[in-house]
């Protein structure tokens, strides 16, 4: 019998904790901003843009809170911005994807805020006409002096340019950290997960649309507008079906790749079946919800359960496969990991609530 002992690998604990799992869910903020930018550029889904933008900024602004919580020396985190490894040198060859994405985050966030201020300027003016007290003052301040449709016409051109500029940075975030897992780690499961970036991208759209629909349902309960709900449901259905299909395809690739690969990824397979099942259910529920909108919360909750499961499998379970691919370890999670994981999400919700107070989420046409 052949035996092989790898003491160092067996001693390697779970390095990246589930708080990163919250982080990857917050990446959905980037996808909401992508949807908002695309909607703005194409002139469709106009009524959904304010909610998408503010929900997107709320989540995207706190996206680094998760990894910050996972750093072993968090007090040195600013070094990522003051000392980024962005260019190869003889002593530091290569480029750090983490440093690159951190810089991209800063640029994308600034552009998103500019986009929001510009697009909300006229909405804020319109809302200020019917508001009173502090809220009226806030709306007047955020109108930036854009008090007529003519002025807004000029602002719109700038906003469209900013929307175009935002897209590449936000798209990079949509596939991060899947790109990091594949390109800059030697975890055998991640390295062999060829469809991970595209699955991740589709998956963040599923979370983004599920989140949007849930918030929209709660906010506009009883007054849902079909021209907002139906396109988002269609995007959600396409995303859910894509992730389910990509997950199934990845399983097939592993099985046909080599017996050793099929053996190595065995611990990931049960949850992949769950992901496929939940996302297919979400797909069918989305089709039902197009006709019966009362089922929207079910669509969102089932999709979120599917994406939580997917992220857990990708981040936590895949990490538990040893670097040789020969062993699968048990996760040893410290007490309070659930609260720690939920905290960055709660922070994102808090930022969104604050933004929803500062800016009007209702789009009103002039004079209405």
């Amino acid at each position, binding site marked *: *019998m*052949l*035996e*092989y*002992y*790898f*003491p*160092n*690998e067996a*001693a*390697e604990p779970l*390095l*990246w904790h589930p708080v990163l799992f919250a982080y990857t869910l917050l990446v959905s903020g980037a996808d909401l901003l992508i949807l908002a930018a695309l909607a703005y550029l194409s002139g469709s889904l106009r009524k959904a843009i304010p909610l998408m933008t503010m929900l997107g900024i709320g989540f995207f602004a706190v996206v680094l809170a998760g*990894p910050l919580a*996972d*750093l*072993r*020396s*968090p007090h*040195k*985190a600013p*070094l*990522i911005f003051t*000392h*980024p*490894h962005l260019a*190869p040198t*003889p*002593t*530091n*060859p*290569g*480029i*750090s*994807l*983490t*440093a690159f994405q*951190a810089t991209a985050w800063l640029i994308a966030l600034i552009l998103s805020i500019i986009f929001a201020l510009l697009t909300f300027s006229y909405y804020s003016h319109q809302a200020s006409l019917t508001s009173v007290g502090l809220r009226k003052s806030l709306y007047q301040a955020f109108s930036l002096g854009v008090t007529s449709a003519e002025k807004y016409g000029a602002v719109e051109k700038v906003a469209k340019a900013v929307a175009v500029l935002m897209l590449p940075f936000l798209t990079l975030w949509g596939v991060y950290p899947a790109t*990091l897992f594949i390109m*800059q*780690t*030697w*975890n055998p499961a991640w390295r062999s997960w060829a469809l991970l970036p595209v699955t991740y991208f589709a998956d963040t759209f599923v979370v983004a649309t599920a989140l949007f629909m849930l918030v929209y349902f709660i906010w506009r309960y009883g007054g849902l507008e079909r021209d907002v709900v139906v396109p988002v449901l269609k995007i959600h259905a396409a995303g859910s079906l894509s992730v389910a299909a990509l997950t199934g395809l990845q399983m097939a690739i592993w099985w046909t790749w080599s017996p*050793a690969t099929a053996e190595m990824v065995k611990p990931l397979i049960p949850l992949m079946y769950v992901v496929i099942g939940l996302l297919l259910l979400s797909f069918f529920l989305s089709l039902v919800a197009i006709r019966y909108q009362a089922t929207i919360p079910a669509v969102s909750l089932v999709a979120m359960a599917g994406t939580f499961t997917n992220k857990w499998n990708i981040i936590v379970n895949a990490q538990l496969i*040893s*670097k*040789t691919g020969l062993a699968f370890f048990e996760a040893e999670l410290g007490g309070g990991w659930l609260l720690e994981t939920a905290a960055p999400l709660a922070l994102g919700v808090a930022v969104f609530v604050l933004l929803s107070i500062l800016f009007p989420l209702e789009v009103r046409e002039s004079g209405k």
Partner: protein
Amino acid sequence: MVETTRRGFLGIVSALAVLPALSAAPDMREGKRYAMLIEVDKCYGCMACVIACAAENNVPLGSFRTWIEHLVKPDGTRVFIPKQCNHCDDPPCVPPCPTGATYKTADGLVLVNDELCIGCGACVKGCPYGARYINPVKGVADKCTFCDHRLRAGLLPACVEACPTGARVFGPLHEDNELSKIVRSRPVQVLKPHTGAEPQIYYTSLPDEVNR
């Protein structure tokens, strides 16, 4: 009083003797390419290297800068394979570092600057050999340094000095020494050559099973 003075004098003499060596060390090392050779058939798993390393480098309990893997072949033969950071020529752990804390020196060592390391673990995940860990005391990435501090003082790495069978051979690769002679004259292997990392720990008599 006399004792103190003598001690002080000896201290000054020692410092004067060591200082030129320390200041000259970087120049003397310029252009060298340090490497290590491990003769697997000479290792009998005594762990002297592991303990010497831990003592020399204050390695925390439960972590290892060097360790010994243990293979039992189908015929019952036991093979011990010492492992550590490979100080790769193209180190996969360096690009992921977001602050440049992990770096390569001119003489081929891969080191960590504790002041810059934020403890993100990207390098730990980036190393194909499992040679890095997060130091729980310092909150930074940690690994073998080839005993850089000892090299500066003209000494060998602690693990090499401690090995009772001479299974570990250390030195500059492109100079005329025991290491380069063996590397040139005998078949040598490296760990996980498929990674393209160009590791600088060479092995003789390495079983094929190790690189599965």
